[in-house]
C-alpha cells in the first residue's frame, strides 16, 4: 500500500543489541531533553496572578452599552440574533412605558436579552450587525463555571453599569471612520 506520509515506520521484532537492551542510553537521552526545558523560557504563565497582554481588539465577553445619559441603547431589533452563526442570542422585546424615557433610548427595548456563552464563538458578527452601537465584544474573559446554566448570560451581566466610572470603554474597537461619523451631530443617530 502506498503511504500517505514518509513518517510511518515499519515495526520489526528483531533482537535488541546490548546497548538497547540496558535502556540507560535512551533514558539519559530522554531525561536530557526534559531537564533542558527546566532552564528554557516557560511556555505558561501564572494566571491569574500574571496576565497576558491582549490585542486591542480582542473578542471576549460582550457588553450592552448605555448612551451618555445612561439609557440602554439596545432596541431588540434582532439583527444580532439573525447574524449570529451559532444562534447564541435570544431576546424578547417590550414597549417603553411613559416615564421610562431615562432608562431606554427607543420606544422598544429588550426586556430579556440572553447570550449563551457555550454556543458563542466570539466571531463579533453581532457587533457588526448592530445598528444602534449597543453590543460590543470586550477584552474580558468569560469566567469558567461548574454548571452549564450560568453560562446563559442575561441582561444583569451583559448591560454595563450605570456608574460613569464603571462604564466599559470600547472606543479602541471602533474605527476612525466611526469616530468621525459620531462627531457629526446632525445625524439623528448621534443626538
Amino acid at each position, binding site marked *: 500500500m502506498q503511504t500517505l506520509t514518509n513518517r510511518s515506520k515499519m515495526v520489526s521484532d528483531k533482537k535488541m543489541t546490548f546497548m538497547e537492551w540496558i535502556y540507560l542510553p535512551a533514558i539519559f537521552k530522554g531525561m536530557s531533553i526534559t531537564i533542558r526545558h527546566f532552564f528554557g523560557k516557560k511556555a505558561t504563565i501564572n494566571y491569574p496572578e500574571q496576565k497576558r497582554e491582549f490585542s486591542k481588539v480582542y473578542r471576549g465577553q460582550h457588553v450592552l452599552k448605555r448612551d451618555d445619559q445612561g439609557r440602554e441603547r439596545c*432596541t431588540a*431589533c*434582532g439583527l444580532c440574533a*439573525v447574524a449570529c452563526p451559532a444562534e447564541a442570542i435570544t431576546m424578547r422585546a417590550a*414597549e417603553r412605558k411613559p416615564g421610562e424615557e431615562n432608562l431606554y433610548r*427607543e*420606544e422598544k427595548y429588550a426586556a430579556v436579552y440572553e447570550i449563551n456563552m457555550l454556543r458563542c464563538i466570539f466571531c463579533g458578527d453581532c457587533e457588526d450587525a448592530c445598528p444602534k452601537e449597543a453590543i460590543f465584544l470586550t477584552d474580558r474573559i468569560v469566567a469558567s463555571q461548574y454548571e452549564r446554566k450560568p453560562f446563559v448570560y442575561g441582561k444583569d451581566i451583559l448591560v454595563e453599569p450605570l456608574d460613569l466610572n464603571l462604564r466599559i470603554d470600547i472606543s479602541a474597537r471602533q474605527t476612525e471612520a466611526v469616530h468621525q461619523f459620531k462627531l457629526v451631530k446632525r445625524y*439623528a443617530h448621534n443626538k
Partner: protein
Amino acid sequence: MPLLKVTIDNIEVEVEAGTTIMNAARKIGGHVVPPAMCYYSKLEGSGGKCRTCLVKVSQGSAKDPRPMPKLVASCRTMVQDGMVVQNTTSPEAMESRRAITEFLLVNHPLDCPVCDQAGECHLQDLSYVHGIQETRTVEERRTFKPIDIGDKIKLNMNRCILCYRCVMVGDQITDKRVHGVLGRGDHSEISTHILNAVDNDFSGNMIDVCPVGALTDNTFRFKSRVWFTKPFDAHRECSKCSGKVALWMKGEEILRVTGRKDKYGEVEEFICNDCRFDRKELKDWVVEGPRTIERHSVISQNHYETSPGKSVRVSK
C-alpha cells in the same frame, strides 16, 4: 379582440387591450416588473401616486413609433400595440427610481430596528435596491406621535408615504370609511377625525395593504421580529370572510394573523378583523402547511425546516 404585442426590456408579451404596462410586466414576471409602492391590483383606482414604477417608453406604438416625452407611471399607462418599454435597461428610469426613493425617505424616520414591518417592508426592499447610502437632507423630519386608530391598529404617521391604499380599503372593503388624508401637500397626513373611530369588520386589512410600517397590528406590537416567526397557511370557517389566512407562529404560539400575500406583497383575499385579531389559538385553525418563502428573504433566515415541525399539531 386581438392581443396587443408589447416589448418590455426586450422581452415580448401579448396582452389584452386595456392592460397596464405594470400588469403586462407582471405577466412576464421576474426582474422586469417595476416596483410598486402605491399600486395594489385588488384595490380599484390605486396607483399613480408614489412614482416608483416610472418606466421609459421608447416606442409609443406600432402606428406612432415616437418615444413618449417623459417617463410614465407603468401602473397607470395602458399598453398599445407595438409598444416598447424599458424598465431596468433604461438608465434614465433607474436614475429616477433612485431619486424617487430618496424623496420617499425625506420624511421617513428610518427606525427600522423598532418598526414591526421591518423584514417585509416594501420601502426597505426599495431602498435596499435603489437607495443611496447617506442622507443628503439636513432639514428636520416632520414628526407625529404614534396613535391608536381603533383598539387594534397603531398608526405611526412618521412612516407613512401617503400611498392612499388604506383609504381605498376604507372605501372599497369596509362599508363606511372613517379615516382619510387630512391637509394638503407637505402637510398631508392620514388620520381619523375622532380618535378610536376605525372599528369596521374589515378595517384590519389596512395593515396588510400598508407598504410601510405606518399601520401596524397592535396585537403583534413588538412581540417578535418578522424573521423569527414562521408563516403557515391555515383556514377556518368564517361567516364574514373566506377564512384563508397566513399564521405567523413561534413554536406553538400564533403571534400574528395576516392575509396570504403573493410575491408582489398583495393579499390574495381580504380577511375580517375577527380572524385577524381574535383567533390566536391553534385550535381555532386548520393548519395546511408552511408557506413558501423566497430564499433570499430575511424571513427565511434561521428556518431549517420547510415542513411543519413536530411541535405543530395539524388539527383535523
